[in-house]
């Protein structure tokens, strides 16, 4: 009982630390799984064992290690099953010739370099009990791995899955993965038997089993899929059968002489890729495996990683050599093969960096090598470092060789911002983050009202960002991400079709993306797109009641564009407007918004409440304000009423005035109780008490004018009518 308690405590620590470190890595735009691997290493002799050996020894005593081993093997088996499930032949669509050429060469080059490296390493880090052939095979296989799961996530997060580069990378990685697993199987067979000829029986048995699974097994699973299609759900009985199949298949491959993981992977790969069945199966299996069991595998692997073993300069040099061989083998192999296959320079380079990702798959291979004693703890540690470094470098290098702005030019599917419909470039753009299409009709209606002027083209971009929270979740695979994007697009289309007036609908172009960080991505898209304004709706954030907290607050604080927050109280018309003015730059933006609405809609009336505290500034309006007013045509000026009011409680005055209007517009200024505090949070006093719908404006750029595009027009119209 004592051991069980200790193991459970270990699991508690492992999961907690993994999540924390994983989140830290997420915030620097790295995959979550790297954080989990690092967490495992930190809990082992490399960090915890070094700084607090007593804690380390009492936390992970030798008696608990066999139990952790069992848990991690179970986790690994089911994880490989999930990987097999995700491997969809649909990824092999198109460009197959280039993909097969590139991926196989991207295995051959690092493999040969690894073999040559083995010549140098064998006399120094291996022992006589290991045959050179097995050692060279393992080292070659370790150099040739590309982690398909990690790669798929990176591609999805960068929204590359629709591009030529993305599909090519996925195809290459899928072929690469399958080939590398075969190579690993051969390596294991050779390691266990000592030489190549001794491994032949094992290899033949393995091939026979694969054949069996892909024919008889598939046939049987097809019937399962048919049953699922008929009943529409995955019953527990079916799940029991499938899990038993996973374990049985794993046992069979272990008996054959290649590792447990192959059987599990094979069953996953043989599963018919009926979208609903695979999704249900994945969703039911992945949470427990990814959250509970896989971190135990990483911790177990981390317990065997001893960075302290690299305690001499020549050993660090060796580590660098391993790293150099791994990176150059993969990168140059892929690059040259892609160029031979006709891929352009920049794309081939990006592909090379993508294929360099080794991540989790490498760790699995290394652990098997260590178990079989083909590689020693020292070499194991060096290779783990190599796996981490190569995966870590992928995202930044991808951004460097293939920056996001080039991706738009490269869509395989029709671009979302296809602007051939309008003849002229739009003069005004509003970006509207839409979280929930069904409830934000008012928001979009307001955006249309602000943007659209009948004579000057403007564009409204409803932005729907699908947030990725965790790694390795089925919904993050490229196919599933595409499906979610389609669902959102459909919802947005429905919303757009319900807007008035009908002519406005062609000026609305949705942008739908996958993103790990909504606020950051919104800011980036606003910059890339040269949006003039971000119009966002309020929503109650999860942990506070501040209407300007949460994501809205993040966008308000970080977006390098003018922002307006709309708090919809259900007003159906936009005929009476109220602007609360306190001679502040944000309030100037409020006036600009109001004036745009006024110019665009001839039945709007505007009342500007200039609230002052001291009497002497009673009749002073800001310079900019006055000059703007002078530029307005008479027809517009007639509908404006300016009132200068002296009030001790400006907020209350505005609230009272808001009772009778359709929309109140105010800037983020202290006068209205809406201001930015030290940590970037905004207070929201006016927002809570305002009686009408409220638009809160925050100015970023002192240069952007929201009126320039329509003022000239109006002036000309004015002159014509005079």
């Amino acid at each position: 009982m004592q051991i069980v308690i200790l193991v459970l405590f270990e699991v508690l620590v492992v999961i907690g630390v993994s999540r924390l470190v994983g989140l830290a890595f997420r915030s620097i735009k790295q995959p979550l799984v790297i954080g989990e691997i690092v967490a495992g290493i930190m809990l082992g002799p490399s960090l915890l064992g070094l700084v607090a050996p007593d804690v380390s020894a009492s936390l992970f005593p030798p008696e608990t290690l066999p139990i952790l081993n069992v848990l991690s093997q179970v986790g690994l088996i089911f994880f490989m099953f999930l990987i097999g499930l995700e491997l969809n032949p649909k990824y092999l669509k198109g460009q197959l010739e280039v993909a097969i050429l590139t991926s196989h060469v991207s295995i051959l080059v690092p493999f040969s370099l690894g073999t040559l490296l083995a010549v140098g390493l064998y006399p120094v880090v291996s022992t006589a009990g290991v045959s050179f052939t097995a050692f060279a095979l393992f080292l070659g296989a370790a150099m040739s791995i590309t982690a398909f799961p990690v790669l798929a996530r990176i591609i999805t997060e960068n929204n590359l899955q629709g591009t030529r580069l993305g599909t090519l990378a996925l195809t290459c990685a899928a072929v690469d993965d399958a080939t590398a697993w075969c190579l690993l199987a051969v390596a294991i067979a050779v390691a266990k038997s000592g030489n190549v000829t001794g491994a032949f029986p094992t290899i033949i048995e393995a091939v026979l089993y694969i054949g069996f699974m892909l024919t008889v097994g598939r046939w049987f699973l097809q019937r399962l899929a048919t049953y699922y299609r008929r009943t529409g759900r995955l019953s527990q009985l079916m799940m029991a059968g499938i899990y038993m199949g996973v374990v049985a298949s794993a046992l069979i491959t272990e008996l054959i002489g290649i590792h447990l993981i192959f059987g599990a992977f094979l069953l996953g790969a043989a599963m018919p890729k009926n979208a609903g069945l695979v999704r249900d199966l994945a969703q039911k299996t992945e949470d427990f495996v990814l959250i509970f069991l896989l971190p135990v595998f990483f911790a177990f692997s981390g317990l065997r990683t001893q960075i302290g073993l690299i305690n001499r300069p020549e050993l660090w040099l060796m580590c660098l050599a391993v790293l150099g061989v791994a990176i150059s083998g993969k990168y140059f192999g892929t690059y040259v093969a892609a160029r031979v296959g006709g891929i352009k320079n920049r794309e081939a380079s990006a592909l090379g960096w993508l294929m360099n990702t080794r991540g989790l798959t490498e760790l699995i291979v290394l652990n098997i090598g260590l178990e079989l004693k083909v590689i020693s703890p020292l070499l194991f540690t060096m290779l783990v470092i190599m796996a981490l470094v190569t995966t870590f470098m992928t995202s930044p290098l991808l951004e460097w060789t293939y920056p996001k702005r080039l991706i738009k030019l490269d869509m395989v599917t029709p671009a979302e911002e296809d602007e051939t419909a309008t003849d002229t470039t739009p003069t005004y753009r509003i970006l509207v983050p839409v979280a929930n299409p069904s409830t934000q009709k008012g928001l979009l209606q307001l955006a249309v009202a602000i943007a659209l002027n009948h004579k000057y083209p403007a564009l409204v971009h409803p932005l729907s960002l699908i947030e990725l929270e965790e790694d390795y979740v089925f919904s993050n695979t490229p196919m599933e991400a595409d499906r979610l994007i389609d669902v959102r697009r459909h919802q947005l289309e429905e919303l757009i079709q319900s807007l008035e007036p009908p002519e406005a609908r062609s000026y609305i172009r949705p942008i739908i993306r996958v993103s790990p960080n909504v606020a950051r991505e919104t800011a980036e898209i606003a910059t890339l797109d040269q949006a003039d304004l971000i119009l966002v709706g309020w929503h109650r954030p999860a942990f506070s009641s501040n209407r300007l907290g949460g994501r809205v607050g993040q966008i308000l604080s970080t977006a390098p564009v003018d922002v307006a927050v709309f708090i919809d109280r259900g007003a159906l018309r936009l005929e009476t407007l109220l602007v609360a003015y306190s001679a502040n730059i944000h309030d100037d933006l409020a006036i600009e918004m109001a004036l745009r609405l006024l110019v665009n809609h001839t039945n709007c009336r505007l009342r500007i409440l200039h609230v002052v505290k001291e009497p002497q500034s009673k009749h002073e309006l800001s310079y900019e304000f006055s000059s703007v007013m002078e530029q307005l045509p008479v027809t517009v000026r007639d509908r404006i009423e300016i009132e200068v009011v002296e009030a001790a409680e400006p907020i209350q005055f505005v609230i009272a005035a808001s009772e009778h209007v359709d929309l109140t517009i105010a800037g983020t200024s202290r006068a209205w109780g809406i201001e930015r505090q030290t940590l970037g949070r905004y207070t929201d006093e006016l927002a809570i008490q305002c009686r009408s719908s409220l638009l809160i404006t925050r100015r970023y750029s002192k240069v952007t004018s929201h009126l320039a595009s329509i003022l000239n027009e109006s002036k000309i119209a004015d002159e014509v009518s005079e």
Partner: protein
Amino acid sequence: MIPKFRSKSLAFYGGSIIFVLLLFKVVTAYGETSLHAPPALISQYRLNLDQNLNCSQPNPLMLNIQQSGIYLNGSLSVAMTETPKIPEKPTLSGMLANRQLSLSGKVRKNVFCPSASANSQDSVNIQSQLEGAGTLQGEMTITGIPTPLKFTAVAQKPSVADKAKSH
């Protein structure tokens, strides 16, 4: 779904595969015949000193070795019937070359003598020869003792817990 391969790509592809297979064959042939890795060392050796230390009740000593090819890390600990709860951090490091083992580093004084203090350390240098049947023969130099101490060490069968740890 059979892809059409252009002849140039096919030639490149076929050539690469043949090249790599040949390379592998040649390299493994060379490796199997000409390259030799150092022999595997057992992880624990029980030390029997030929002379006595200046100590009333000297502890029986165990030499623990972690081998990574020719690079060795090790520690000296008190031999006990069960494995100690806290595994010794390796304090000795050295190399294995041509069956010659050398290790040097610091060892706490109370490993040698239970009555000595735990806080001070001796510098220890071990030079030994790997004999057949897993025995080591050599000498150990400890600070404070002018003449090197000869010893023989006998390999210990690894215990169950150790076996589990290596998995």
